C-alpha cells in the first residue's frame, strides 16, 4: 500500500547534450616554500558505461586519494623490526602524497555488471620530532629524551575487478579479484638519552635504521546465491582465496653508552644487516542457508571453514671485525617461523520483525587451531587450540520514521599475531627489547551498545545518543621490566580487567530568528587499562571528554559565518604512581567567514586560536592560526576560478602531541608546515560552472 492513493516518483531530467557526457574538475596551485598542489578528475559516461579518472600530487598534507576512500590498508608489517619504526600520521609529519587511477563500470547487459579499477599511490611523509617520555614504575621514574628524523616513501599499485552475473531469476554468481603491490623505503635516525629521577644520566646514544621492502597481496572471491522454490528459502556459497609475499632488507647501526655515577662503564655497538620475508596463503569457504519460520521470522544457518599458512623469516648478520663484512650470523636475532591456522565455524541466528520491532539472536561456534614452529633451529611445533562460543543479539524499536532506539550485543575474538607468538628477540631499538610469547591466548571482547535517535522532518532539530561498553577478557598486554641501566624488555601476556566505555551525543537545532543552526557534539571515552611492570600489576584509568559547540549563520545570501568552540579534557590516573596522575586540556576556538562580493569575487578567512595546557614543561603552547583566501570566478559561465591563499599567515603553527601508553607518558614537538602562500587555478570541464546559485 503506497501513501493511500499517491505514488512517489523521482524525476531526473538530463539535458540532451548530457546523455553522452563528461564532467570533471582540474586544479593546479603553486606556492612559496616549495609548496604545490595538483588535482584533477574526469568522468565520462555513455549508455551502459561509466569511466572515472583521477589524479593528484601535493606536499601540503592533503591525502586526496585517502579522503576519497580510494586507498586501502597497507601490506602487513613484514617483521617485528618495524615495531620500532615511527608511525607517521598527519599530525606529526609533513606529507607529500599523490597518485592516479581510473575506474570503469559496465552495465550494458542487464544480466551482467562489470567493474574494473586501477590506482597508483605515492605516500611520502617527513617526520622531525623531539620527544620526551616519562616512564612509570612502582618505585622510581625514568626520563627519556629523543630527537628523531625519519622519512618514508611508499609506492603502491592496486588492481580490482568484479563481475556480477544473473544466471536466471533465482541464481546469481559474483566474482571479485584484487591485486596490491607495494614498495617501501624508510630511513630513521635518532639521538637519545635517559636520565634517572635525579637528573643523572643513565645512558645515551644514537641509532640509524634503513629499511627497504616490497611485496604483493592477491585475493579472489566467488559467491553463488540461489533462491529455492519455497519463498524465503535461500542458499549461498562463498569461496575466498588469498596469498601474499613481502620481503625486506635492513641496515641498523647504533651506539649506546651506559653510565654509573657519571662515569661511562659500557658501550654497546650494533652494526647489523638483516633480511626478512613474510609469505602467506589461505582460503575460506562459507555456506549459508535461510528458512522462514512462522509468519514473520527467519532462521539463518551457516558453516565456514578456512586455513592460512604463514612463513616469517628473519636473518640478521653482524659486522665481522675480522673480515670487515656482515657475515657473522646473529643466531639470537635470526629465525624462521611458520604458523598454520585452521578455522571451523558454525553459526545460527533467528530474526523476527513486526511493524515497529526487530529482534535477532544468534551465536557462532568457532574452533581455531594454531600450529606454530620455529624452523632451522630447535624444531618444536607449538599447538594452540581454542574453542569459542560467540553469542550476539539485537533489538530495535521504531517509534516512527524519525525516532528509533537500538540495543546490540556482540562478541568477538582477536587472535595473537604471529610475531607476538614468535619467541624471537627484537633489538632494533637497543633500549626497548621485545620478545614473543608462544603461550598467548586470544582476546575475547563483549560489547553492549545503545543508540537512540530522533529528528524532525523539517524543523532542523535532531538528537542522537550512542553509548557502548566493551570488556576485553585475556587482553594481550606487554609485561615490561626495566633494569637499572634503563633498558626495557617487553613480553606479551594475557590479562583480564581491561574495559572501555564510549559515549557520543549529537544535538542540533535551527535558530530561525538569527538564520542559524546551532549544534552541540560531545564525545566521551573512559578506559581502564591493566599494566604489568617489573612484575607489579597496576592500572591506568583514562577519561577523555570533548564537547564542541558550533553556530553556523547565513545572515544574507552571500555571507556564511561559522563560530566553533572545542574543548578536549583528558585525565589519566595511575595506580602505580598516583603522583604522576595528570590531566591535560586542549582548547580551540574558530571563526570562519565566507563572503561573496559583487563582481564574482569571494573572500574567505579562517581564524583559530589553540591552547594546549597540562603537558610536561616546555610542551605547552598557545598560538593563533590564520588562513585566508581571495578568489575570482572567470571565463564564461564561471567555469574557472583564480585563487590566492595563505596558510598560517602569522607563522605560529606548532605541533605538540601527548601520547599515553601503559608504561609511559610521552610529549612531543614535531616539525609542521608554517606560513606559505599559494596561487591556484580551477577549471570545470562542464558548462555548469563552479559557482552555486545559492548557499
Amino acid at each position, binding site marked *: *500500500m503506497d501513501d493511500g492513493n499517491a505514488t512517489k516518483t523521482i524525476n*531526473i531530467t538530463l539535458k540532451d547534450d548530457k546523455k553522452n557526457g563528461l564532467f570533471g574538475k582540474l586544479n593546479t596551485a603553486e606556492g612559496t616554500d616549495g609548496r604545490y598542489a595538483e588535482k584533477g578528475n574526469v568522468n565520462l559516461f555513455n549508455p*551502459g558505461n561509466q569511466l572515472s579518472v583521477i589524479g593528484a600530487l601535493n606536499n601540503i598534507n592533503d591525502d586526496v586519494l585517502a579522503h576519497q576512500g580510494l586507498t586501502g590498508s597497507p601490506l602487513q608489517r613484514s617483521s617485528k623490526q618495524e615495531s620500532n619504526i615511527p608511525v607517521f600520521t598527519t599530525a606529526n609529519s609533513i606529507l607529500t602524497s599523490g597518485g592516479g587511477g581510473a575506474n570503469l563500470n559496465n552495465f550494458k547487459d542487464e544480466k551482467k555488471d562489470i567493474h574494473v579499477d586501477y590506482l597508483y599511490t605515492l605516500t611520502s611523509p617527513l617526520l622531525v620530532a623531539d620527544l620526551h617520555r616519562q616512564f612509570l614504575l612502582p618505585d622510581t621514574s625514568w626520563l627519556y629524551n629523543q630527537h628523531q628524523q625519519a622519512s618514508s616513501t611508499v609506492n603502491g599499485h592496486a588492481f580490482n575487478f568484479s563481475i556480477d552475473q544473473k544466471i536466471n531469476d533465482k541464481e546469481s554468481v559474483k566474482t571479485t579479484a584484487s591485486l596490491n603491490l607495494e614498495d617501501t623505503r624508510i630511513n630513521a635516525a635518532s639521538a637519545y638519552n635517559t636520565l634517572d629521577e635525579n637528573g643523572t644520566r643513565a645512558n645515551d646514544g644514537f641509532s640509524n635504521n634503513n629499511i627497504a621492502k616490497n611485496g604483493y597481496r592477491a585475493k579472489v572471491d566467488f559467491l553463488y546465491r540461489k533462491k529455492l522454490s519455497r519463498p524465503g528459502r535461500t542458499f549461498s556459497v*562463498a569461496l575466498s582465496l588469498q596469498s601474499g609475499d613481502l620481503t625486506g632488507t635492513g641496515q641498523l647501526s647504533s651506539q649506546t653508552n651506559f653510565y654509573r655515577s657519571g662515569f661511562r662503564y659500557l658501550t654497546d655497538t650494533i652494526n647489523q644487516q638483516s633480511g626478512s620475508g613474510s609469505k602467506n596463503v589461505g582460503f575460506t569457504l562459507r555456506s549459508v542457508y535461510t528458512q522462514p519460520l512462522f509468519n*514473520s521470522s527467519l532462521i539463518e544457518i551457516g558453516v565456514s571453514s578456512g586455513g592460512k599458512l604463514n612463513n616469517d623469516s628473519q636473518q640478521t648478520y653482524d659486522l665481522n671485525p675480522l673480515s670487515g663484512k656482515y657475515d657473522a650470523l646473529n643466531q639470537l636475532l635470526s629465525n624462521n617461523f611458520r604458523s598454520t591456522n585452521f578455522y571451523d565455524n558454525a553459526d545460527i541466528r533467528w530474526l523476527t520483525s513486526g511493524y515497529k520491532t*526487530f529482534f535477532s539472536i544468534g551465536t557462532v561456534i568457532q574452533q581455531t587451531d594454531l600450529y606454530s614452529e620455529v624452523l632451522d633451529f630447535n624444531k618444536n611445533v607449538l599447538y594452540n587450540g581454542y574453542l569459542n562460543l560467540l553469542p550476539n543479539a539485537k533489538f530495535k524499536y521504531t517509534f516512527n520514521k524519525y525516532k528509533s532506539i537500538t540495543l546490540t550485543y556482540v562478541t568477538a575474538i582477536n587472535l595473537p599475531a604471529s610475531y607476538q607468538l614468535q619467541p624471537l628477540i627484537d633489538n632494533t631499538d637497543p633500549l626497548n627489547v621485545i620478545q614473543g610469547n608462544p603461550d598467548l591466548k586470544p582476546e575475547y571482547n563483549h560489547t553492549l551498545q545503545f543508540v537512540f535517535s530522533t529528528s524532525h522532518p*523539517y524543523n532542523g532539530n535532531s538528537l542522537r545518543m550512542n553509548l557502548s561498553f566493551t570488556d576485553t577478557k585475556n587482553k594481550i598486554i606487554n609485561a615490561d621490566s626495566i633494569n637499572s641501566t634503563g633498558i626495557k624488555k617487553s613480553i606479551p601476556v594475557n590479562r583480564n580487567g581491561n574495559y572501555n566505555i564510549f559515549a557520543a551525543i549529537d544535538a542540533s537545532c535551527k535558530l530561525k530568528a538569527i538564520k542559524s543552526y546551532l549544534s552541540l557534539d560531545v564525545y566521551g571515552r573512559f578506559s581502564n587499562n591493566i599494566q604489568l611492570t617489573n612484575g607489579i600489576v597496576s592500572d591506568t584509568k583514562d577519561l577523555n571528554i570533548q564537547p564542541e559547540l558550533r553556530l553556523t549563520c*547565513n545572515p544574507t*545570501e552571500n555571507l556564511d559565518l561559522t563560530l566553533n568552540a572545542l574543548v578536549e579534557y583528558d585525565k589519566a590516573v595511575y595506580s602505580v604512581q598516583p603522583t604522576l596522575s595528570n590531566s591535560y586540556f586542549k582548547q580551540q576556538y574558530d571563526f570562519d567567514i565566507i563572503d561573496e562580493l559583487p563582481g564574482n569575487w569571494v573572500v574567505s578567512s579562517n581564524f583559530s586560536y589553540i591552547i594546549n595546557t597540562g603537558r610536561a614543561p616546555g610542551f605547552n603552547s598557545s598560538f593563533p592560526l590564520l588562513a585566508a583566501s581571495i578568489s575570482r570566478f572567470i571565463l564564461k559561465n564561471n567555469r574557472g576560478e583564480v585563487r590566492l591563499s595563505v596558510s598560517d599567515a602569522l607563522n605560529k603553527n606548532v605541533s605538540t602531541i601527548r601520547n599515553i601508553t601503559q608504561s609511559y607518558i610521552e610529549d612531543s614537538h614535531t616539525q609542521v608546515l608554517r606560513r606559505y602562500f599559494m596561487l591556484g587555478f580551477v577549471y570545470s570541464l562542464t558548462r555548469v560552472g563552479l559557482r552555486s546559485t545559492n548557499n
Partner: protein
Amino acid sequence: MKHLFLIAAGLLLFNQVYAQQKEGTVFYQKVSSPAFTLNGQTQKMPEIVNKYELIFSGSKSIFKNLPRTAEDQKIQSNGSTLGMVSNNTLQLQYYDFDQKIQVRTKVLGTNDYIIEGALPDFGWVISDEIKNILGYACKKATGKSINKVLTTSVQNRVVSVNQKIDTVSVTAWFTSDITSPTGPDKYAGLPGLILQVENAKGTVLFEAVSIKPEIKEKELRQPAKGKKMSTEEFEKEEKKFREESTKAMNGIN
C-alpha cells in the same frame, strides 16, 4: 429411499459449502520490480514483495499491510545478512458500506491522522469476461481511479515537490460468490469481492493468494488512533507539510 436421503443430505452439505460467503479473511500480495531508467539504460532493482490482509463481514471491511518479514528485509552479502531495510508502517483502510464512509489512516512526519470521507466512485463497467482466481469464477470490471502523483525535481540546485492529480484506468476481477462489495486497498463498489486489480498496462497491482472463512472480529473496527480530519482538511495539512519539508531541503532561508 435410503439413497434419496443420502442424496438430499449430500446436496445440503454441498449447498452449505458453496453457500454465499458473507465474511472471511483474504491475503493479497503485490510484487514490485522497481527499475530506473537513465540515459536509455534500465537498471533493475531487487524485487519487493508486499503482503496485505483484508477482513470483511457483512457491510464492513478493513484492509491493512502486513509487517515486512525478516526475509523481505534483509540485505545479503557473501551469503550472510548484512543489514535490515526499515520496517514499514501500519496503514489501515476501513469501509462501512451501510454508513457509506471510507476511513483511512495516514502518517505525516511524526503525527498519525484518521481521514474520513465518502465512498469513492470508480464508475465500474462490468464486462462478460470471466477468469478463475483461487477457484472462484471472477468477472472483469473496468473503472477510473484518481491517483495523486508527487514529483520531486531538482533544477539549478533548488528542490521542488509538485503534486499532480491523474485519472487512470484500472481493471478489477470480482466474484459474486462472495457478496461483500469490498476489495484490496481503496478498490470497492462492485457486486462481489474483488480478488485482483491490474492497471492499464496489465501490471498486477494486487492479487489474492488465499482466502479463509474465519475472521478476527476484534480487528474489524473503525480506526481510532490519530487526529480525525476530513479529506479536504487533510489535503491542506499535507500541502503544508510538503512546503515546510521542501523549504528545509533548500536551506535555512
